[in-house]
């Protein structure tokens, strides 16, 4: 039985979410509230497995709430109507989130993910830490991202990533020390998340860390220090050359 807590400042939405979640036989809603004040009482009292957590609460944000808790020993699905900044932070931590108005299919998918593969608690805390780090620091200090593979959460520093390769909605991260991580997300998402002045997209299917590029071969591929060869598409060749020679100031990540 998955014990769920709903935290949203709007009574109608709380009621709606409760109705939606209750359709799952293996899930039970053990409580609902709308403020941080209430949540700080309710969470320790009910000890839930999962919280559906609206980011904007009447007396603060959900991140404020999480900071006030002594330990995070539950899963979270964040919910937000509109908050680009928070969503980006959540993505860095590879956490789950839903957008309002809530699509039932998306909710079910998120619930399924948690049901089948609840991420280890300690890793989840680390994910939250990466997200919080994103929210609290400026761009220079953000240097980590969480990759969520089928089996585990992997915290990776930007300078550990040699390059990414995408294939049919999956992205493989090639890391230093010959490690690899397969993530079920499109490469575009990581192009948006990773700093644009370090990561170069020479090809539809590749995202390369500039610091590991050894040279550019005229025949149209990049050679990394590791010896790996990354194709450069004809369309992006000029862009790649400009990037490598430092002529093009890449767009900012922010």
């Amino acid at each position: 039985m998955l014990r769920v807590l709903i935290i949203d400042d709007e009574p109608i939405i709380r009621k709606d979410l409760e109705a939606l979640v209750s359709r799952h036989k293996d899930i039970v809603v053990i409580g609902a509230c709308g403020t941080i004040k209430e949540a700080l009482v309710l969470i320790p009292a009910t000890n839930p497995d999962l919280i559906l957590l609206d980011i904007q609460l009447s007396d603060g944000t959900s991140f404020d709430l999480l900071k006030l808790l002594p330990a995070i020993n539950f899963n979270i699905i964040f919910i937000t109507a509109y908050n680009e900044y928070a969503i980006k932070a959540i993505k860095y931590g590879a956490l789950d989130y839903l957008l309002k108005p809530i699509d039932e299919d998306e909710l079910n998918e998120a619930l399924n993910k948690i049901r089948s593969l609840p991420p280890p608690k300690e890793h989840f805390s680390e994910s939250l830490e990466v997200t919080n780090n994103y929210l609290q620091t400026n761009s220079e200090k953000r240097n980590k991202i969480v990759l969520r593979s089928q089996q585990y959460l992997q915290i990776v520093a930007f300078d550990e990533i040699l390059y990414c390769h995408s294939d049919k909605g999956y992205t493989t991260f090639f890391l230093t020390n010959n490690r690899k991580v397969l993530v079920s997300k499109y490469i575009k998402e990581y192009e948006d998340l990773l700093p644009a002045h370090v990561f170069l997209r020479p090809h539809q299917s590749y995202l390369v860390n500039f610091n590991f590029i050894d040279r550019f071969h005229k025949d149209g591929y990049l050679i990394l220090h590791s010896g790996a060869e990354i194709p450069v598409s004809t369309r992006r060749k000029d862009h790649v050359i400009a990037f490598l020679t430092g002529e093009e100031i890449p767009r900012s990540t922010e």
Partner: protein
Amino acid sequence: MSSCLNVTSLLLCLALLFSCGKGREKHPVDKSAEADSLLGFLKQGVNNAFNKEPVSNAKHMLDSIEPLVYENGSPVLIANYIRFQGTYFVNIDELDSAKQYINKALNYSRKFDTTLKQVYASKLMLANVYKREKKLDSALSYAREAYIFSKRYDTAAYAITCLRLAEIYTAIGDIEMNGKYLLEGFRNASNPRLKRVLANNISRYYDNINQPDSALIFFQENVLPDTSKFGPGNYGDIIQNYGVLLQKQGNVNKAIEMYGRALGHYKEHNADDASMALLYFNIADAYKGEHNYAQSNNYIDSSLKYSALSGFTDEKSNALKTKAGNLFALQDYRQAYLLLDSSYGVFEEEVDSSFIIKARELETKYEVKAKDDEIRNLNASNASVRKISALQRTLLFVLVIIVLLLVAFAVLLYRRRGLKEKLKQTELEQRLLRSQMEPHFIFNTLSTLQSLIRNEEKEQSIKYLNRFARLLRLNLENSREPFVLLAREVEALSNYLSLQSMRFNTIFTYTLKVYEGYEEDDIYIPPMLIQPFVENAIQYGLQDLNEMGSLSVIIEKTNGTLLCIIEDNGHGFKEGKISSGKQSLSTAIIQERLELLSRKTGRKATLTITDKKDTGKGTGVIVSLIVPYTTGSQ
């Protein structure tokens, strides 16, 4: 012919002597006494060492007292000390080093010597060095400065300065001026040695201008009456010189007598070999004039003997020639020829070397002249360059001022333009902010609508959707204008309140009261001034209350302004909120818009927010806005 051999170094020492010993009253007694004893050491010990080989002894003495001198700190002492260092280098003929020290002394004196005596002592010394370097222009100008000063203020240095000037004029070739300053110096000299030197120089001067009578008279009147004035031990020199003058006058007997006295004095005082050689030659010459050739030859031999001892050969060829002449007279022709031969040889040697020396002197003279010219040209061009650069500086100064003024002007203009730009910019920003209904609000509203539908509350859903559509339309229309009709703004507000009360129906109720007849009123206000406060009240004030929240909005018309009061019974802004950043941001934006409005309408727009707790009337917040409005005709 003169008996003064080591004149230069002697005079240098005299110069130093004269500049010593002034201006010590200011020091405490012991310091002053110490300075005196050190000065005495310089004058006596070091000065004497300069006249003895090796001169380096003097240098060692100087170096050994250096710490004492600087520790004592007497400016007079230090200036003298530095000049003594210079004197050492003059003595070893390193004139550049000498100048360095003298200049150091000069600079030092300029700083610390209020009497200026040390300054001019340094200048006089510099003049001497320049003279030795054959830079006569510089020498003369320094010496003249010193002369003018010493004549007026420093009588002790007056005579020596005259002597210097006279020497420089000699070097220049102006014999008349030479004589003038020698006589002037002589009259004012009190130091015996200096007086003797001057006297000798004066007699030589008369000799040079072919007035041996005058020389004789000068001697008889000024020197002979009291030879002790010229220092003990110098009697021989004086009397010899007098003899030379007498001999020239043809008074050989008297001359020989004087030579005899001189010889006696020389022997008594162990005079040096060169002086002896010269005196013996003079005696021989006198005897030759008396046709006493044998006697003359005897003295010649003595002279030659002393010449050989002293290594001083100036008179050797003359002596040999004189001896040869004597032998001719004695009819010893063979010996005479032999002597003439060797005399000729010596003469050739002398002439040769003197030729070379003369040629060298000439050469250096021309070099020096060329250098002087060069320096003069340089000075001239420097002066013109200075003039030009002064002009340039003035021009630059004027230019800088003009540029500064221009910059200031530009900054002012820029600021004014910047202000205008900023006003425009803010207005644009405001419009942009207004035009965007907050996305968060939109999606939340849609989310609520979805929940209503999912909950199958059909009537509610339709009503909700209608309100939302109307609000959306009003928002799109209003936000395009800087001013909107009050009626429209009230309609938007009413729709917003209605939507929010449906969303939070269990949380709060509201009232909206606008003055009678506002629908017909042709009144315009900036859009979205009131709604943010309503939003804040619902979002932060009324959530999570123990009782039912209530919100009231009242709009009243006064003279040219609208008074809007938004009141709630919520937490107040001091309690219950962890995050209020957004709230204060929206307040700040409204504040800014109101300022803009004040500026535009010329009427004050104000915003006051009161926490009811502060006034003791329950809880909640009262926001009161005074908004100047415009009418349709405006």
